[in-house]
């Protein structure tokens, strides 16, 4: 019992330290603050972007949904995101409106199987980053990797810290990483662009075993 009394606080402390370490994403390891940079975050989609259609595969906790996903600008500061099966049945239909300090999201439809836990919030949050014009991004902090010279821009929005990594040698965002208590870590990866529109996008969230893969359908 005495031994338990000695070991338990240490184990507790070790567990606490371990949990802190595992919660702290080391996204900016080997990156150094770049002082006096006026670098802004480029929008992921072109400023005059109107719409695009993607072949989509969504995996959530071992279940897979496939279909097509449509991004469409509905007004100067708003978008709709509709994901439907190949045979036309809708999985979800979200609206995102920018303009204020925080974006406003609206769920027009979500199939019951997807409307549980944090899945809907994770998807909406990630889409809001993907389509953002980053105007709320007032005080970005710019970093550069000492080794790869890769540029990373950190900014805060909706109480979350997001880190955008620019593609090597380009002025485009290649990766966005963020973390929230409820949703865990999310990573958005963009592998290429076609006429200013991402042609391949991957959204991953390990906590929810969520993986959304999008491939641009050229029309």
């Amino acid at each position, binding site marked *: 019992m005495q031994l338990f009394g000695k070991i338990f606080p240490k184990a507790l402390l070790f567990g606490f330290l371990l949990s802190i370490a595992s919660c702290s994403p080391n996204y900016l390891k080997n990156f150094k603050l770049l002082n006096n940079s006026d670098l802004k975050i480029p929008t992921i989609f072109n400023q005059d972007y109107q*719409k695009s*259609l993607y*072949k989509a*595969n969504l995996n959530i906790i071992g279940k*897979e949904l*496939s279909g*097509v996903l*449509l991004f*469409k600008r*509905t007004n100067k500061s708003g978008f*709709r995101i*509709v994901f*439907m099966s*190949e*045979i*036309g*049945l*809708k999985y979800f*239909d979200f609206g995102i409106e920018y303009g204020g300090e925080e974006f406003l999201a609206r769920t*027009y*439809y979500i199939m*019951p199987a997807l409307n549980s836990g944090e899945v809907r919030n994770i998807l909406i949050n990630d889409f809001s980053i993907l389509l953002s014009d980053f105007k709320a991004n007032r005080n970005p902090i710019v970093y550069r990797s000492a080794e790869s010279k890769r540029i990373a821009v950190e900014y805060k929005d909706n109480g979350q810290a997001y880190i955008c990594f620019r593609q090597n040698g380009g002025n485009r965002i290649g990766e966005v990483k963020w973390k929230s208590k409820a949703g865990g870590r999310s990573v958005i990866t963009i592998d290429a662009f076609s006429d200013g529109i991402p042609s391949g996008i991957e959204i991953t969230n390990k906590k929810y075993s969520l993986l959304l893969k999008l491939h641009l*359908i*050229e*029309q």
Partner: protein
Amino acid sequence: MRVISISFLLLLFHFAYPQSAFVQIGDAGKLKAEIKKHSEEVNSIKSDFVQEKNLSMLEESVTSEGRFFFRKPGEIRWGYSKPYEYVIVVADGKFRISNEGKVSVFDIGSNQMFRQISDMIVMAISGDFVDNEEFDIGFFENADFYLAELKPHARQISDMLSAIKIYFDKTSMDVKKLKFIEPGDDYTLIVFKNYQKNIDLKDSEFILN
């Protein structure tokens, strides 16, 4: 002036009584028997199709194309070729899906949603729905088509679909169009082209590896 008046009247008549307007058939007994007879006589179908998913609030439509095969009692191959490759085969109690070359197999009996989708496709394509008590069925006609409008009773289906409209060619009684209407008025319209029935279909059409 007289010509203008007549043109105006014709225009008014066109809007008041559009050619495509459907009117309800009061006594649908004869039509039901005809649909049933035609359904019994069709053993196989091969047809190209154009699918248009219409998102009403967005004023947007997504169009895809493909080919489908049907063989009694319930084998289906539903394949998209544009703008993506995607094939569904229903055979031997299995639902097989090829998504960009990756094949997944599901047991129809183990998944109620798959079974319902499979039953609805067979029912709509073959016209075998006249005695189906899971739907309220209304019958309509215009100059070219008979229209059967099916409204589902089951909550699981009505959450996804508010109605299914099946359009039959008045001369051949072949199914020419299918319209799946969702709550909120979005719909999927499937128009069949190069429709052939009662032809020999190879077994390989219903195999997906």
